[in-house]
């Protein structure tokens, strides 16, 4: 199964995870400061900055796009509860 390396910049930890894992599943285990609310992509609580490797993540859904836009989040932000890692190296600001 393909794997991805997700690095939490502030926490100093890189986690090697199976492709398809959602970012929030990793961050809450790592203890990074990403907080979640609804876990359904609606509340915007888990907006997270992706430092690099966005191309290795799942496409934004229409709902995620809408929530990010409503929260004035830039193109380098994702909802951790929605974004899945697909492979390669990804660095997250948390």
């Amino acid at each position, binding site marked *: 199964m393909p794997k991805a390396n997700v690095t939490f910049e502030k926490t*100093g930890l890189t986690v*090697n995870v199976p492709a398809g894992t959602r970012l929030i599943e990793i961050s809450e*285990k790592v*203890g990074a*400061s990403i907080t979640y609310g609804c876990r359904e992509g609606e509340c915007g609580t888990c907006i997270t900055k992706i430092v690099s490797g966005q191309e290795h993540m799942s496409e934004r859904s229409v709902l995620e796009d809408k929530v990010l836009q409503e929260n*004035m989040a830039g193109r380098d932000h994702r909802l951790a509860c929605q974004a899945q890692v697909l492979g390669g190296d990804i660095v997250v600001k*948390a």
Partner: protein
Amino acid sequence: MTRAPDAVEIAPGTHWIGALDPALREFDIILKTANGTTYNSYCVRGSEGVAIIDTVKASHAGEFFNRLEQVARYDEISTIVLNHLEPDHSGALPELMRRAPQAKLYLSAKAQLMLKARVKTADLEYTVVQTGDHVSLGDRTLRFFSTPFLHWPDTQCTLIEEQGILFSGDVFGCHFCDARLFNDKVGDFRFSFEYYYQHIMRPFREHVLDALALLEPLELKLIAPAHGPILRDAPQSYMQRYRQLASPLLHNEVGANTKSLLVFYISSYGNTALMAQAVAEGAESEDGVRVSLYDLQSSGDLPFVDLIEEADGIAFGSPTINGDAVKPVWDLLSSLALIKVRDKLGAAFGSYGWSGEAINMIEDRLRGLKLRVPIKGVRARLIPTEEELDKCRDLGKQLAQHLTGNIERRIISMTELLAQEQPHA
């Protein structure tokens, strides 16, 4: 006391048309008031239009419309400015929009969400504004300043450029009800001003400083907030007070390159105290970290809130009693909503007799407060062994290393991470 006033002219062409709520003793559950509050709304008349700045709580809409009608006709209203969409300022908005359908709405980008939640109309039209944007009323210009998170994401301030009048929303406001309205006429409201800052603005200290940088250069003649007295006497002094309140109480001896770690504990038999001492020792073994050790038993939580606001990391030691962390720990943790703690480093440890749930509970609370909790806490059954005290020293050392950035960059698999994250056995 003075009777409720009609619309009150606060400057040529500009009237207060808000509402008084003298019976209110508790605001939004969390705030006490000594004599109620006011919901301040304003009407600005220019040579080419009339603007309404904010509205009032829905329960006080009648009072607001009565005052509005004393100074303007609905068909004259060209502009409605929404500095803040909280219900106590937007309650009368749907009815105002119905009575003045031609009026254009101006609000911040973040306010769009709340506007749509407040006014459930499919064809809602509005204009998003930010710092630098303005609206002309002919001989009056309304200029907008984005001041987010004071105290909601949507908040902004609006200036009448020609007159130096700032409609500041909740900033510089307070819950104080006095029909004499102006700061040089009302009773002594200084405690309300300070209390309001501490409970409403303090968690957003960095945003307060950003807003002050934007507003301090303005030559203001008057500040017209959305609650409490209108500040026409020495308005700049209220900004200066905000700057003082947003600055640390005491000079911190810790230099820019030194990090601060606070270790709090409470201990019934001295066991959690031993662990706290070991955590502190471990942290002190690293250079560049100032470690402070505090017993929660004999202290109230408020001074500690001030210390935590300035700290980089906090660790809590609690015994488990009846399956829970103890009340002084929860009291302090529940007080942290008053300050910004996001991204600080957090950890937990403690001694227990039978079950030992306190550590996980504290860690969950710290995560809920958006702290980083990357190191699994340490717990020990009754009297910690030397090995367990070594684990506490290691916890302290790792906390210190995280604070100084001297952490070993590790790669771990998800399987290992999940195994490590299993609840304490």
